[in-house]
């Protein structure tokens, strides 16, 4: 009997630790229930604070909270403070759906800023549409989607690729080797890269997809060596990224002749591989932590003061930050913050001086005009911009190069 008690106590302790371990990082502010706006305006912040993609999403949540702090310090919206209601979607799409429902129905938030993986966005989409809510989704994604209830502030593939691919061909050569994680984003992105290669006279000399989390690349590197490409185009994600770059270096390949070009390798990956390994490789994004704009300097300093000097800031973190500011501007502009239709309309054509430069929301398709920048990794472990677009590039949810007739598909307003 006594032994049985001991055993259950041990299991109980383990379970408790497990639960608090996962919940410990969660901070939910604001009381649940009640939809009164007399004391402030509730905004949902919904990212993964635990699980596989917490790596990036924690920073996005932090950036959104920082933006709310700044907005409140400037007097809030319509004289009211924004109240963040934060939830953890735990890297699971099903949890994202439940939490989105909770935020909209129970907490009665005016809008949600959140989502990172496409799977989480797709899980939230029907919930947001049914509940007549607003979701601001700040992550680059594969496109081919439009919702009248979602504002997409991350890059569509054309914004990262249409300058990037020709620039790589011009500077390194026309033979491309694809390496990617085996899921929807790399497949969709590579379709566009291939279309661009065709247009600009490039060619594909090899293509490999590995399971997510895969970290043994000896055989892929052998194939690359025998294919002799000019550019390795990588859309690997997660733990695979640093492993691949490290093993590329250990086999003695030279980034000056055959760099890894990627639309998704970011500052966080660079921290995981080290500057020595990353040096010479190339990435395309609208934003880099090293950008030399007054808005970015202010943003990086505020972020580092609040969350620590060594926290890497990536393009999705910047997007979460300016998305929250954009939401505040839209709330300020609309005459009825509780009306999703009017709030979405208020977003159309809205401009904001973001850390990456002046961006704006397209009048018709709820996506954002963003900058395109190509950057090389330097000795200092930072990205150095080598080419940038003069002005923000128009978003193409259905890329023109793949779907020339689909221009009107996303004509929402």
């Amino acid at each position, binding site marked *: 009997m006594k032994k049985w008690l001991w055993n259950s106590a041990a299991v109980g302790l*383990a379970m408790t630790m497990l639960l608090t*371990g996962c919940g410990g990082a969660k901070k939910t502010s604001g009381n649940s229930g009640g939809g009164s706006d007399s004391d402030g305006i509730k905004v949902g912040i919904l990212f993964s604070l635990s699980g596989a993609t917490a790596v990036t999403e924690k920073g996005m949540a932090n950036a959104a909270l920082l933006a709310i702090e700044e907005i409140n310090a400037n007097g809030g919206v319509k004289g009211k403070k924004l109240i963040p209601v934060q939830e953890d979607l735990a890297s699971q799409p099903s949890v994202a759906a439940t939490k989105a429902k909770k935020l909209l129905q129970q907490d009665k938030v005016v809008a949600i800023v959140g989502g990172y993986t496409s799977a989480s966005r797709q899980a939230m989409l029907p919930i947001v549409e049914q509940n007549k809510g607003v979701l601001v989704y700040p992550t680059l994604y594969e496109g081919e989607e439009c919702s009248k209830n979602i504002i997409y502030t991350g890059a569509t593939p054309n914004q990262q690729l249409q300058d990037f691919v020709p620039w790589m061909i011009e500077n390194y050569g026309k033979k491309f080797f694809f390496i990617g994680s085996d899921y929807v984003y790399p497949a969709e992105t590579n379709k566009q890269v291939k279309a661009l290669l065709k247009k600009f006279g490039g060619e594909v000399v090899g293509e*490999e997809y590995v399971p997510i989390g895969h*970290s043994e690349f000896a055989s892929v590197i052998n194939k690359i060596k025998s294919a002799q490409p000019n550019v390795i185009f990588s859309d690997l994600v997660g733990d695979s990224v640093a492993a691949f770059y490290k093993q590329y270096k250990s086999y003695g390949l030279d980034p000056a002749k055959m760099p890894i070009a990627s639309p998704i390798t970011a500052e966080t990956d660079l*921290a995981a591989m080290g500057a020595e390994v990353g040096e010479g490789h190339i990435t395309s994004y609208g934003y880099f932590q090293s950008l030399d704009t007054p808005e970015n300097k202010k943003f990086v300093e505020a972020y580092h003061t609040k969350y620590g000097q060594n926290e890497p800031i990536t393009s999705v973190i910047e997007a979460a930050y300016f998305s929250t500011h954009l939401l505040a501007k839209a709330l300020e502009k609309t005459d009825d913050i509780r009306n999703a239709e009017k709030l979405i309309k208020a977003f159309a054509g809205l401009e904001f001086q973001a850390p990456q430069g002046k961006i704006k929301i397209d009048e018709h398709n709820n996506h954002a005009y963003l900058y395109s920048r190509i950057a090389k990794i330097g000795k200092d472990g930072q990205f150095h911009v080598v080419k940038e677009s003069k002005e923000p590039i128009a978003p193409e949810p259905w890329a023109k190069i793949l779907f020339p007739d689909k221009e009107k598909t996303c004509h929402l307003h």
Partner: protein
Amino acid sequence: MQQIADGASVAGILVIVALGLSIIFGVMKVINMAHGELIMIGAYTTYVVYTLNDLPFYVGMLAAFVVAAIVGFLMETLVIKRLYGRPLETLLATWGISIILQQVIRMIFGPDGKTVISPLADKLEIGQIVIPHFRLFIILFAIGLLIATTFILFKTKFGTQFRTVAQNREMSECLGINTSRIDTYTFAFGAGLAGVAGAVLAPLKTVSPTMGLSYLVDAFMTVVLGGVGSLAGTALGSGVIGETSQLLTTISGETGAKILVFLLIILVIRFKPEGLFRMERR
């Protein structure tokens, strides 16, 4: 030839990853779902010692062994000791521990990956074949680790008692061997080996809270294929998996090779349920 050399280095990695699990799983019949997290803790220890404090790499390896062994010791005395003979509960408890360890590391170091730079940056070139020095080191280290473990198990008093308990627990108890203490030491030793695996893998892979998961699968595959509770089996199992997967990837790509290797293992287990190396039962 290049594929065979790469296969050898993959096999080396598998030996190092699976050795600790083989000892814990084979002798104590404990399915340790937290094995990957012990590897992860070894990798983080190396990060702290080698990258942050700038001490030599072998100090990091040693520290990784000690820290992981301590974590293993605590796991055994606090939780697993109370659950022997109840495989399902052990499975759940160690799985819970793996989640706790992941989250603790995430709270201390943050969720993003850390850098451990390879201590041996050079490479060996024989004609067309390229072998990075660090991969060569892994192959040699795996062989060394196998020899050292064999020595410990067959030439020391702990090893004799360990093998006695493995063969017949009740009889050893009758003979006055403190089996519960042997269990604790064995678990700590196996955990320590996992820690060393983490140290050796850190410069090659990504050091992150989630890194352990893929190694857990690899380690179980190796141990089951080779034969539970047999060191020679672990060595053979990792050799077979390492070489076949590298040779298959040249024909079928990474995902295809993984599927084929899984099929191969299922076939072997179907016809030789005890694995390639059968341990003698007396």
